[in-house]
């Protein structure tokens, strides 16, 4: 019953809002270029179906590329940090500097260095840059939060550094990594879209480019359709990573067991 209410209530809210929106636009005869009616957005979506889904696919693939690259890089760097305090002290401040510098500010440089002929790679790199830090800090916290007695026990039984990492530290850090990935996945999408805006029209082919292009032409219904797709993609990425988290932790971690 609770589950039905959990689903039914947001759906009811959506129906009410969309209904009120449709009515208000018709009632006050709001011009389409200011606020299109939901029915007009659906129509724009159907008309531009192939170009919008192509843009969605491009945005999705670039985001995933950047995100997976960020996870791999963060994992490697966190493991390196966990093995040497000296390396952590030397490099961690630069990871922080990279994070606090807004991606829009770095975007022009990256675009120039990598070149507009490799625009997708540049966008993936920017998406990855922004996703990198939350994943890194989460794994670092996870690797440091391991039960010290368990580490002592592994040492007592003659575990090598890699055995300790593989058998004790990494499994122990898994919940932290997955939590960081949920944040990183959504942020990667934001980074990708921001980078696409920075790249400007004419080069990128993703949803942000469709938003820029359609709004320039005052095709606001298409802009809304692209926005809805973007939001849906963000929710889908978050849901997929939440599902992965639940699946990997379902037998042993309180967060997944209670879910």
């Amino acid at each position: 019953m609770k589950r039905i209410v959990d689903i039914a209530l947001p759906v009811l809210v959506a129906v009410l809002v969309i209904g009120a929106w449709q009515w208000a636009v018709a009632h006050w005869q709001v011009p389409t270029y200011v606020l299109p009616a939901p029915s007009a957005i659906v129509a724009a979506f159907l008309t531009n179906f192939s170009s919008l889904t192509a843009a969605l696919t491009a945005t999705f693939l670039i985001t995933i590329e950047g995100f997976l690259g960020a996870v791999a890089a963060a994992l490697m760097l966190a493991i390196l940090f966990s093995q040497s305090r000296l390396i952590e002290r030397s490099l961690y401040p630069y990871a922080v500097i990279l994070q606090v510098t807004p991606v829009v500010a770095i975007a022009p440089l990256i675009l120039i260095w990598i070149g507009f002929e490799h625009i997708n790679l540049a966008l993936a790199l920017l998406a990855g840059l922004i996703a990198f830090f939350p994943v890194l800090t989460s794994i670092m916290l996870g690797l440091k939060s391991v039960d010290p007695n368990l580490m002592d026990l592994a040492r007592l039984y003659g575990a090598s550094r890699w055995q300790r990492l593989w058998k004790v530290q990494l499994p122990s850090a898994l919940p932290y990594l997955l939590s960081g990935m949920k944040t990183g996945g959504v942020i990667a999408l934001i980074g990708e879209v921001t980078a696409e805006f920075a790249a400007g029209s004419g080069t990128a082919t993703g949803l942000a480019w469709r938003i820029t292009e359609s709004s320039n032409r005052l095709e606001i219904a298409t802009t809304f359709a692209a926005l809805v797709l973007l939001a849906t993609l963000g929710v889908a990425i978050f849901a997929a990573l939440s599902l992965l988290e639940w699946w990997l932790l379902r037998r042993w971690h309180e967060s997944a067991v209670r879910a």
Partner: protein
Amino acid sequence: MIDVRSVAKRFPNGTEALRDLSFAVKDKEFVSLLGPSGCGKSTALRLVAGLLIPGDGDIAWPHGKPEIGFVFQEPTLMPWADALTNARLPLDLKHMPRAQADARATETLARVGLKGFEQAYPRELSGGMKMRVSIARALAARPQLLLLDEPFAALDEITRNALGDDLRKLWREDGLTVLFVTHSVSESSYLSQRVLVMTQRPGRVAADIALPAGRDSRLSPATVEAQRTISDALNNVMAA
């Protein structure tokens, strides 16, 4: 088996945990280290295990360093792994072939009364069962020396007594040497052959009490007498 000679230990924060700690443990002996809270019992056990290095003095192994099993106050299990994988950990770390390690861990779990719980995760087990897995893990590598750091302190009395009986049985059956850290007079009087009463911090051995035979139950006259002797020694330490 163990010869602890004039060991001292001071931690980086300045705490002097042990000063001039000396004692010996013979092969197949069950010895309890007993003392007030914070007297350095656990530090002494960690030094014997090699998890800490003495600041002064040394720990000698006249017949060579034996295989050691260690049980912490908390079960210290890997929550992401089932009971079998937890009990198998020392064997995995020694690269024992999987089939052999599984067979050994299954057998050890059965010995501590956990037959049928091999696939259970720690969160599905009670506190006592988790401690049994922890003991199984310590026994899986077939140690000659078992070190236990107040393993039953967090358990209820019924579970504590049951686990104590099991430990006594395992010690006798396997011919283990046991060094058992506790702050329970009744536990030490029933389980061990010898009790080393430690002073307050910095800890050293204040009394070395050999307990008489005939302590077959917790309420037998010999056990009660042993309790009185240990309590007296402990009171002297507290009064000092």
